[in-house]
């Protein structure tokens, strides 16, 4: 051999190795193919049925697919419920991550918190939804949702957002905790060595340092929350339009029921109650686009802020 190369040509490999390589290649290609097919199909179907006015009009009850309106209310519902979820998940997640990384005393409690967070990460959302129903039907939670003759139904943006936040929480915690772990200990000590307390160090040095991780974590969490259906169907009411509870404008809406793009697709899928595939595909495309935009943002943002770190 004239030259030794790090990668041997696969021709010289044993048959089993070559078969393995071929398998790896074909599986990878197959995966890309499936993924591409889904996107392409959605794109074709979605673009065909997605008219701009679908975004501006509310759903209506009608017989033909041409008369049932658009999905303005579900689109707003998605944005609203995700905002509620992230408004809860981001601060709580950052708090949990800081406690786990910087305090974590007593140890047994820290271990319990850690496994709880992991449990939420793996819990089926329908289980969380069921738990949410029990919780928000309790009369002391009645102020959060619309009441009908004193009966608390426990459905609305607050309950749905609260349960969705549990879905997003582990992603925020993991991201922020990794960010905190990546900060060398001597940076903390540098702050202590200037006469700073632990609290001041966390507020002024550590939290600014993990700001990119906070943003990344909440965006990934939001992407996760946007896509959930079970919690929406069970806890948001899955109504045609936003049905505010009255009173203060935004607060009333949040206390009331509504639907999201996911529940809209769920209802309009060929197997759903309404069976309007055209609308389902159009809404699914919008949903997919939202998630893709979030992923791209995370990627771009992550790459831009990773450049400056300590050695």
């Amino acid at each position, binding site marked *: 051999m004239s030259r030794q190369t790090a990668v041997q040509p696969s021709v010289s490999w044993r048959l089993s190795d070559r078969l393995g390589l071929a398998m790896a290649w074909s599986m990878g290609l197959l995966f890309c193919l499936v993924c591409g097919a889904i996107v392409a199909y959605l794109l074709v179907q979605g673009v065909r049925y997605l008219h701009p006015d679908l975004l501006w009009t509310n759903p209506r009850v009608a017989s033909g697919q041409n008369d049932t309106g658009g999905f303005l209310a579900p689109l707003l519902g998605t944005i609203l419920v995700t905002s509620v979820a992230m408004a809860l998940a981001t601060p709580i997640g950052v708090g949990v991550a800081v406690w786990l990384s910087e305090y974590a005393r007593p140890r047994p409690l820290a271990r319990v918190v850690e496994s709880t967070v992991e449990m939420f990460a793996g819990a089926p959302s329908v289980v969380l939804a069921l738990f949410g129903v029990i919780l928000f039907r309790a009369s002391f939670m009645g102020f959060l949702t619309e009441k009908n003759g004193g009966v608390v139904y426990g459905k609305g943006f607050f309950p749905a957002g609260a349960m969705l936040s549990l879905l997003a929480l582990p992603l925020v915690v993991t991201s922020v905790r990794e960010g905190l772990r990546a900060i*060398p200990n*001597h*940076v903390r*000590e*540098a*702050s*202590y*060595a*200037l*006469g*700073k*307390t632990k609290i*001041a160090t966390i507020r*002024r*040095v550590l939290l*600014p*340092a993990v700001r990119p991780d906070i943003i990344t974590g909440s965006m990934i969490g939001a992407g996760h929350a946007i896509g959930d259906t079970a919690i929406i169907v069970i806890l948001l009411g899955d109504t045609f339009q936003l049905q505010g509870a009255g009173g203060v404008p935004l607060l009333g809406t949040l206390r009331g029921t509504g639907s999201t793009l996911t529940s809209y697709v769920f209802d309009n899928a060929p197997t759903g109650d309404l069976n309007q595939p055209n609308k389902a595909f159009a809404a699914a495309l919008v949903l997919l686009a939202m998630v893709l935009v979030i992923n791209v943002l995370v990627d771009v943002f992550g790459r831009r802020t990773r450049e*400056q*770190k*300590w*050695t």
Partner: protein
Amino acid sequence: MDLITQPPPVRQLEPGSKLTVRPGRSNAHIHELDKAVFGDSARPGIISADRDRDVVPTLERMRIEQLSISYGAKQAVRSVSLPVRQGEVLALIGPSGCGKTTLLRSLNRLTELTAGAALSGRVTLDGTDIAELEPTALRRRVTMVFQQPNPFPMSIFDNVAYVLREQARRKPRRASLRPHVEEVLARAGLLDEVRDNLDHPALRLSGGQQQRLCIARALAANPEVLLLDEPCSALDPQSTKVIEELIVRLREEVAVVIVTHNLQQAHRIADHVAFMYLGELIEYAPAGALFSAPREQRTKEYVSGAFG
């Protein structure tokens, strides 16, 4: 000196007197190297063979008395007594694990952050036992610079202003902080390079600039003592030279204690050198004397490169 039960052999310097250090062989060779690197413009000064710089008046700031520190069963520092004076650079040298960094960290009670650290003996700052001081107050008077440059992830200005902002009850205005920030940056020899970029992120500076910013940050609280833990070990020779010159200049305003693995560096910048081995203080002497005529056998072996 009578407070120290085992007085270290300190050569008392008369203020204003001139300390002439006999050049060791290794030192002359450094000067040659230096000339080769920096050309003939290499200033005879800190990095020069015949180091007869002015001796500035000294003032004792800290006194370490019979200090022992242990982590669990492991004794890191054994009954060390040393004076720390403003007007001179005290270098702690010795092989890895000899306790010099632990000793340094105990001077502003950073050792307390390590679980299981136990301490006996006494350290005083201007006559007060540091154990009686509030740790945060002590650490503003005895600040520290670390081995790795570690500016905070904020602007250059905010890094220096960090100390001033939190210790004030009401958040001071930026404009009112500016003169002090600039003055401190000037003392750290960084102002000319960053004057127009005070709002730039500190982590974009070069390694040497970052370390000088860390020194500026440590000076911002107007400390009495500045602790340096191998401040140049992560830097290139040119940045090292700049920082060494800075340290020598700073010793007139603050007492400087530096831990270093680099014997040449200790020789270049220190006025007094303490050689530690296995937690014990083996020898404490003026830098020239310790390197050219060590009294202890182990010092001789270490300085000549027999171990470490």
